[in-house]
């Protein structure tokens, strides 16, 4: 029996290393307990050192890539499910192409969940200016991801916002980017971030780019689910926009056509080259 401790930060590498050793030594899935971030406590702590890397087992590249996503899922069974599939792959090398296998389908679905969460994080993190002066500007955001996606997503922000310092704080893991160095720290409660006047301008944009004649609320909520709204500054306007849409459109319809402004005649003459 093995209990494998897996850290909250660096989960992917730790899982991959352990899985390599265990599968190489032929340890079957029933003999492994995966312990994420000490959640099991002392009770199950069996201190059996992991087997050394002896034999290297070949796993399909598509499995390795899928595992790199699935390890960040919030399902406590994720590590066991991955290992069980790896175990089956030893004798069923074509398994990864079988889109109808139930175990694989479940893992693919989890992979999709992490994909989506990562995508939403890229979309919905909202930085506030910390106005700290200094050579580099600094920004900070509070975000609540569904899965453990801060670590795999932070490099995206590092590639995009490389000329500024930033922090993305979450209850799970906090990422910091200072002077070009990306580091990860334990999660934290929501910090008090200073007000940022640009949020009001963003709200103005959000309200005015919306076309009240095309109200389609479900299309919005399917892509921007309500659970994200509390951390999106623009979301506070949604209620009023929906409530006022009908009236706005009616107002446009009711308005009688107006007479063109006086300058029109002159401009049209110019356009025809008569002036």
């Amino acid at each position, binding site marked *: 029996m093995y209990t494998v401790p897996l850290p909250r930060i660096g989960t992917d590498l730790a899982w991959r290393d352990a899985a390599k050793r265990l599968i190489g030594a032929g340890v079957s899935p029933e003999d492994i307990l995966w312990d994420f971030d000490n959640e099991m406590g002392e009770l199950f702590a069996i201190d059996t050192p992991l087997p050394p890397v002896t034999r290297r087992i070949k796993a399909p590249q598509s499995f390795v890539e899928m595992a790199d996503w699935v390890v960040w899922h919030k399902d406590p069974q994720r590590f066991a499910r991955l290992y069980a599939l790896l175990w089956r792959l030893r004798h069923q090398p074509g398994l990864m192409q079988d889109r109808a296998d139930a175990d694989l389908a479940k893992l693919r679905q989890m992979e999709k969940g992490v994909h989506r969460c990562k995508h939403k994080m890229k979309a919905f993190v909202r930085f506030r200016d910390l106005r700290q002066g200094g050579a580099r500007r600094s920004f900070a955001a509070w975000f609540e991801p569904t899965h453990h996606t801060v670590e795999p997503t932070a490099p995206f922000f590092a590639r995009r916002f490389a000329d500024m310092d930033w922090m993305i704080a979450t209850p799970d893991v906090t990422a910091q980017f200072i002077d070009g160095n990306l580091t990860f720290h334990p999660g934290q409660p929501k910090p008090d971030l200073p007000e940022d006047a640009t949020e009001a301008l963003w709200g103005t944009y959000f309200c005015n780019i919306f076309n009240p004649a*095309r109200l389609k609320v479900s299309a919005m909520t399917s892509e921007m689910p309500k659970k994200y709204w509390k951390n999106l500054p623009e979301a506070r306007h949604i209620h009023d926009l929906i409530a006022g849409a009908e009236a706005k459109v009616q107002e446009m319809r009711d308005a009688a056509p107006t007479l063109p402004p006086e300058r029109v005649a002159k401009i049209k003459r110019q356009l025809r080259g008569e002036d």
Partner: protein
Amino acid sequence: MSRLDLSQKLAILSDAARYDASCASSGTTRRDSRDGKGLGSTEGSGICHAYAPDGRCISLLKILMTNFCIYDCAYCVNRVSSNVQRARFSPDEVVQLTIEFYRRNYIEGLFLSSGIIQSPDKTMEDMLRIAKRLREVENFRGYIHLKTIPDAAPELIEEAGLYADRLSINVELPTDQSVQAYAPEKNPATIRKAMGDVKARKDVAGERSYTGKRGKRFVPAGQSTQMIVGADGSTDATILGQSTMLYGDYKLKRVYYSAFSPIPDATAKLPLIKPPLAREHRLYQADWLLRFYGFGVDEITAARPDGNLDLDIDPKLAWALQNRALFPVNVNRASKEMLLRVPGFGTRTVGRILSTRRYRSLRYDDLLRMGASLKKAQAFITAHDWTPGGLTDSVNLRARFAPPPEQLSLF
């Protein structure tokens, strides 16, 4: 008139920009700012940073440089004869808004268009100044989409292509006659020429010279256009025929369809109808079938004698119902081309079917797990444990999919 502050200008100039459907920010070159000397990145697929209650993606800061315009296009809120409030951003204001929004992760970049002020060249020059400043002074590496002014000098349009990821020129309406009727100052031939110039310039940029060097980057995300649907009397067959020509002759990346929707201070020429959103949706579906599923325009529009798409069911289903003799198809043996024509099968499902059937004979439940919509597909396929029996040819098949007729009530 009192001076407008930045927030008021933003309100006016985003309000004026919302009738442009495009907000795409995908398909350009991969860039990042890891060197620490600039801001921004583009990585293949763009990101929708928010959704408005109209269900549309907000990916870019989509604004007009100014909504003053000397033209008089009947469908447009900015036309010279309208009494809407006018505003104009300074180049610096546009640059600052873009950068500050980008730094807070609100947007992927800028989509800038403009009413025509003084002259087409002058307008285009001002837009260029903004794009150039973003790239060269701010070192901005995010996405830039410029709506070009077709009547501007070709050199200006060419220069725009060096800074922008995408250029667009709107054809506005599906036929030349409609453009003449509703956008009298615009010339369809000039619009096509401008699109042709951009295509030719992009072709050159893609070729290697004799030294093996590639030409300068030129609109890597290509060009797109927009057609307004429902303002004139064009049929869907006319519209889709026009799109096919645009995709073919000008290699456009996207044709956007924009349901004509009520605008403030509308002209008496165009009645303010409810925007034909269902029609717009069916056109996008048909457009998809043309580009990715191997359908031809005549096939898609043959179902109805009036040349319009069936609003109650999607165009692929409508085609299948008309061509039942070709069904059911066997998912374990049919060609890729035929699988793509099965209602309820997307390109991804078809890919999965092709890869999995090498290992086993597919059953009904397997298809479900692959993400096929069997509610639609089941009448048109056979699988290892499934045949549709008489379903394929049953007379009430269409009724199973079309929404029931609206209940009548006494009044």
